[in-house]
């Protein structure tokens, strides 16, 4: 276990807003090539965690390491290995998709025009590169966000609710793109969502956050492979280390969140 290479290591991450602890001593590790589903209902602390992992929000305690680089003291080295969409992808609506990506590419050493065109093709936007982003649908903006996240050939892509607002076809395409990028390019993913079926389809690991605490983790491959067998659970705290007989991620999620684990 200790010989494994962790792309992302989060230790004891904590954030308080006033008297409320939004993220509470959260620990998380993502291996190379892993697609990690970060599950939790609205307000559970998913986005705040992602904001802290990407440096947009300062944690009150804890540390974030990306490929071994400390996010706080080695910010540039750490963030250079990340591509991220935090909440909705934001772009300059008056500029074309190509110009938006060119602005981002300017901030990344070694990213050429060819790479800009390449990621637009990977994201399936090659036909609309000269259109203003203001004319894009939400699905196209999500695709553009993924293209933008790919620009620097990241080791880790962080997607916050990537299928939000997408139609079924758009959701399917985004999920296929994620699986393709993980298998072909060896990119690790941290994907936050409350859509359990989506996560079950594409993720290799899933973690459940509740009231800012990571209450359980589950190996989704194992879940898919042995529908009838009880699955092993690694929980963030010993008191939550219970066993579930879940055969679906949905069942596992409700076992953990309603069946006692993580209940305060």
């Amino acid at each position, binding site marked *: 276990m200790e010989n494994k290479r962790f792309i992302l290591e989060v230790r004891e991450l904590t954030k308080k807003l006033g008297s409320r602890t939004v993220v509470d001593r959260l620990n998380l590790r993502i291996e190379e090539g892993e697609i990690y589903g970060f599950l939790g209902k609205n307000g559970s602390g998913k986005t705040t965690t992602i904001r802290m992992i990407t440096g947009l*929000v300062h944690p009150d305690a804890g540390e974030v390491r990306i490929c071994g680089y400390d996010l706080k003291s080695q910010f540039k*080295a750490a*963030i250079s290995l990340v591509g*991220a969409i935090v*909440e909705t992808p934001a*772009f300059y609506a008056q500029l074309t998709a190509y110009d*938006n990506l060119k*602005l981002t590419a300017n*901030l990344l050493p070694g990213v050429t025009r060819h790479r800009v065109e390449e990621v637009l093709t990977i994201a399936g936007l090659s036909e609309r590169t000269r259109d203003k982003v203001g004319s894009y649908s939400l699905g196209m903006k999500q695709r553009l966000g993924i293209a933008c996240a790919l620009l620097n050939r990241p080791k880790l892509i962080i997607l916050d609710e990537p299928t939000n607002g997408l139609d079924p076809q758009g959701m399917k395409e985004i999920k296929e793109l994620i699986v393709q990028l993980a298998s072909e390019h060896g990119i690790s993913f941290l994907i936050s969502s409350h859509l359990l079926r989506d996560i079950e389809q594409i993720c290799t690991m899933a973690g459940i956050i509740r009231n800012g605490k990571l209450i359980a983790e589950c190996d989704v491959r194992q879940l898919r492979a042995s529908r009838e067998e009880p699955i092993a659970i690694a929980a963030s705290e010993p008191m939550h280390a219970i066993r579930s007989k879940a055969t679906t991620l949905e069942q596992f999620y409700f076992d953990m969140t309603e069946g006692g684990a993580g209940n305060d």
Partner: protein
Amino acid sequence: MIRLIRNELYKTFRFKMVYLFMAILAVHAWLTVRIYSAGGEWKSVITMANGQSLPLALLNSMGQFMIVFIPVFAADLITSEVKSGTVKIALLRPVLRIEWLNAKIVSMFVFITVLLGFSIAAEYAIGTLAFGWGEQTHYAGKLYSETEGIWLTIRLAVSMLLPYMACGMFVVFIALSSTNVSATIGLSIAILTASQYLSEVGSLESYSLAKLVYFFHEQVYQANTDTLFQSVTVLTGYVAACYSVSAMIMKKKNFTS
């Protein structure tokens, strides 16, 4: 850092705001000339109708425009980016927060310089088209040769970069503290306008940012060393204090939109 500044300048000149402000300044110069030509000398700032004197005659009124343009520009440059989330385009990349702030300040400086340069050039052109270039430059009751007049115009216009930047830095601080565009613009204009009334309190008069934005060029022209030194110190103090506070806000800020 250079690439970040290049991005900021690209956006500044790609979007329409700067051109709208240029158009307003040009229209103002044109209207001033038209009113004078229509026999309205008595209500015009023009004291000698020729092209080479017009930029100096209009330097006073430019401050009144800048006190509005700078907050509008800063609100778009900073508050709007934070609110819409486009700030993440830079901050999710290998860009330090202080570098982002510095790039915004460089962009503000370029914006002010371009507007100042444009207004002088446009006023020379409009004045010359309306009245001809003229023999001499007239300013503050004195006549200057053509070369002296151009040099005086450049010197006084360049000197205005300091009060405009002090105003810009003050507004950057407001823009970083504020959560919406309207609040940035409204609060900045309100505070700057209210600062004019510091002159009512004798001892605070020299600290009025609005007054310095309107009249600093006159102090430079009069070259009274003591007054000028005091004003430069006050303006530099505004720049340094606002930059320090802005850097601190930026360092501690949590980006949640």
